[in-house]
């Protein structure tokens, strides 16, 4: 069965290491914060200018001057620092963030990602996504494996305008966890009850399937 939003967040959380500085994109990536494993501490970076994002505020704590990159009211964790957006993107562009998690429309076998623009629809902008994918070495893209109409989002070549070129190495879909290298997707894990055949069928780009593909387990 395809992974739920919560399971996607749980699986991504297993990529966290103690002491990681992490930038979580809007949507499912944000949920990762709820599944940080025991014994592991991470600091969340918010690209408007906050390192050490805390939980949402209580009604009493709400402060218009404390927001995250999703424009939600937040708090600062103990040991946080707050700085300008130039400093924030110096961190991001300079490769100081250990893990970036973000959504996408498409990825391809060359590590290209398209996530911000669908020609013909209103284009709102890329925000910080282009900086995040260009700056990070360790990125996990999360998205559904195929569209509602069954069209694969793991492609030979992205069809939409790119967010970044050759920068994606890990993809977690609702069906599988894959790595991208040497011009192909490498199937690493499958969602519980999802067959390798289904993943092959729904992957348009070149896919390398090992003899054994472990099934993800969730508590």
């Amino acid at each position: 069965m395809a992974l739920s939003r919560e399971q996607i967040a749980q699986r991504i959380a297993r990529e966290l290491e103690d002491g990681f500085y992490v930038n979580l994109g809007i949507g499912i990536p944000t949920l990762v914060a709820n599944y940080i494993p025991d014994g592991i501490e991470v600091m969340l970076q918010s690209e408007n200018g906050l390192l050490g994002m805390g939980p949402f505020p209580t009604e009493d704590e709400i402060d218009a001057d404390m927001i995250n990159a999703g424009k939600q009211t937040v708090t600062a964790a103990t040991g946080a620092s707050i700085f300008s957006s130039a400093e924030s993107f110096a961190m991001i562009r300079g490769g100081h963030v250990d893990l970036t998690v973000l959504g996408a429309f498409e990825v391809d076998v060359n590590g290209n990602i398209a996530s911000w623009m669908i020609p013909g629809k209103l284009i709102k902008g890329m925000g910080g996504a282009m900086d995040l994918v260009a700056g990070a070495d360790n990125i996990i893209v999360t998205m559904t494996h195929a569209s509602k109409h069954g069209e694969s989002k793991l492609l030979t070549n992205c069809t939409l305008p790119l967010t970044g070129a050759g920068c994606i190495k890990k993809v977690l879909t609702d069906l599988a966890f894959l790595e991208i290298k040497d011009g192909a997707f490498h199937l690493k894990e499958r969602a519980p009850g999802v067959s390798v055949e289904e993943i092959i069928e729904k992957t348009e780009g070149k896919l390398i399937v090992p003899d054994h593909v472990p099934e993800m387990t969730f508590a």
Partner: protein
Amino acid sequence: MSGFNKVVNSYEEAMAGLEDGMTVIAGGFGLCGIPENLIAQIKKMGTKELTFVSNNCGVDDFGLGILLVDRQIKKMISSYVGENALFEKQLLAGELEVELTPQGTLAEKMRAGGAGIPAFYTATGYGTPVGDGKEVREFNGRKYIMEESITGDFAIVKGWKADTYGNVVYRDTAQNFNPMAATAGKITVVEVEEIVQPGELKPTEIHTPGIYVNRVIKGSFEKRIEQRTVRQG
């Protein structure tokens, strides 16, 4: 030190000299840390054909969005726009031009503008529509694009406290784009919640030194919240 007293007492004075067709750099991220009263003054003045450099364009009835009503904005240079219906309408009607710029590149363009750096290289946007028409150059085996800096005729900035010399501190994440905007205006206007005497701000904690600031005004602020999210207390 009369020569360093930057305080003005009216919003008319604060925005005096703004003319049709000028470029204005505005601090703020979403509705957080925006110079809301300076924007309202621009609406009141009715200045037209303005180019705004600002990460976002506010919402229908707050922030830069209010300047759309009388079509005062010709062009936006932003990373993320369209949180308002009128924006979409004017964009689709070709009445409004938008130059989408990655958020970090936008911040760096403002900083570079203030710092006398006419251009820099970044990997951000290489291989994407943002890189179209821009010079590509390789450093250490990786490709980068050249981005040029931005300066404005005016910069409008929201601070927390300023002293009368124009030294400014920002409050929490309301800092965002404000410090870079402050450096990049020919005339930089800062509105703040509190004006203090020189010496009251600790020298090492000043975010924007007064050398960048031409005018300071005390305002009162609505500080609207875009996404009110809470947890159970």
